[in-house]
């Protein structure tokens, strides 16, 4: 049984072909697995080990180092709020507290505190599923997350400008 679905099996092959050593494909395959299932399960790691000629322990060893790889199921919407120094003085921690309280018992939304997102000209900043939203407030942040949940997503931002 393959963990990856059919189209991802083809993608995995294409990823492996990029590198002279298959072990290099661990991170890209972990991203692929997470895109497919929302998190990095033990089954996914076993399959990645198979594909890269490593052991599940090697894959776990590598993946456990990286904060984006979720080794537990998490919400469909991952909300990453920056509280590093520029966001700290522009209201990031208040946004984080508000979102954490608001979504404490809503399993489809995972709120996490993250380090600098490289969006300091639009501080305070957050990402929803790695799409940037800048100059947020506690209330606008909730509106943004609700936009994702209802499928009427708010515009994301490109560095220094906003796009749909």
């Amino acid at each position: 049984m393959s963990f990856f679905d059919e189209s991802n099996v083809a993608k995995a092959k294409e990823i492996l072909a990029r590198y002279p050593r298959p072990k290099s494909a661990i991170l890209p395959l972990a991203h692929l697995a997470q895109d497919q299932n929302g998190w990095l399960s033990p089954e996914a790691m076993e399959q990645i080990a198979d594909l890269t000629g490593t052991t599940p322990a090697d894959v776990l060893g590598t993946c456990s180092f990286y904060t984006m790889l979720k080794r537990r199921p998490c919400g469909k919407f991952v909300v990453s709020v920056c509280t590093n120094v520029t966001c700290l003085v522009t209201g990031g921690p208040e946004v984080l507290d508000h979102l954490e309280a608001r979504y404490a018992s809503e399993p489809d939304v995972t709120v996490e505190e993250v380090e600098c997102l490289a969006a300091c000209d639009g501080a305070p900043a957050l990402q929803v599923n790695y799409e940037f939203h800048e100059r947020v407030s506690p209330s606008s942040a909730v509106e943004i997350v609700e936009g994702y949940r209802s499928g009427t997503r708010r515009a994301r931002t490109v560095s220094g400008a906003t796009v749909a």
Partner: protein
Amino acid sequence: MTETRIVTKRLRDRPDDSWTIDGALASGAYEQLRAVLAKGDTADVQEQVKLSGLRGRGGAGFPTAQKWSFLPPDSFPRYLVVNADEGEPSTFKDRMLLERDPHQLVEGIAISSYSVKCNVAYVYVRGEFALGYERLARAIDDARAKGFLGRDILGSGFDCDIVVHRGAGAYICGEETALLESLEGSQGMPRIRPPFPAIEGLYAKPTVVNNVETLSTVPHIVRMGGEEYAKLGVNRSTGTRIFSVSGHVNQPGNYEVELGMTFRDLLYGLAGGVRENRKIKFFIPGGASSQWLTGSDEHLDAPLDMDFVQQTFGVMLGSGAIMVYDETVDPVLIAWRLAKFFAHESCGKCTPCREGTGWIEKVLYRMSHGLGRPADLDLLVDVGGNISPGVVNAPFVQTTICPLGPSAVSCIASLNKFFRDEVLERLRNDAGAHA
């Protein structure tokens, strides 16, 4: 006061389509690659880069041509690895270059690869940069379709391809040897040098690691000629750099300026000065790893010159990030948040960094939350000295594998230098309050 837009010209001139192949081609993209391949002289590119005086824009400011010259002449394959892991707090220029001018980077990579005789380049893009990854991958596909990448580029016989690799959330992977470990599928822990990457880098092959902005500058050096480029700037800080200005300025943003401009002109002339006409209490001139400067005339009137600020004030221009704080800001709180960052991001390979950064964070936490003790500042200086002798009191000696450990001590050195009396008084008051 004006910007000197070279690397940011296309993305400023064509905000709607600078990142597309059509927008890029309509504004001169790949013309320099074409010219270089037509000329067929790999040594000439290196010569121009040498004459330009270009120094790395990733943080360390190492001369780019010199780095390339360390590759052993007869050892193949060799790799160019592009550092797009931008994670230094308050730096946001490479993200802009990836999202809004990926073709400029692709052209820079192709020209540089040709010059150093490499046929495969890897770009390590910070995991959180989903849009930057998407646009760069798209740019590479479009460039390949037009014959600017792939086999026998523009009939020159030169083959070059680019692989984009996504990181997964670890600041330390911006350190070049940790980046190589990560690219090889391991935990991103820095390597002990020697061997240096130029001799044994990716897959133990000769490797050059360069920053996004560094390589994005290369096509312009070819276009202008190295000597012309070197006329911009000041002393050994030639050309322009993009400064990411954030914090309490009225217009935070990325500004590309000729080196040699003063901090005052950048912060007041371009970034609009401080909100509500307040004063600058202090600013951090080169990313979180740098020591700090204050709002004094001596500091504000200093030039953006990498060597001058290092030699005169012991600070660095580093990654080109400038964070500005007005009088309302508590420097101890900023120091604590920086310490928390470094404690979180320490890879744990060296004991002094692994243990020391956590300890510093705890002490700064209590100091910034009204629970400090009178001896805490000296305790910090002592712990900092154990991570990295000399950050607080020269001479500096690096005893850790990478510079992250010493970077974590920068905020302590700065607190002690500029705010010692203020901090000590407050610690005495805090101790009195809960005695």
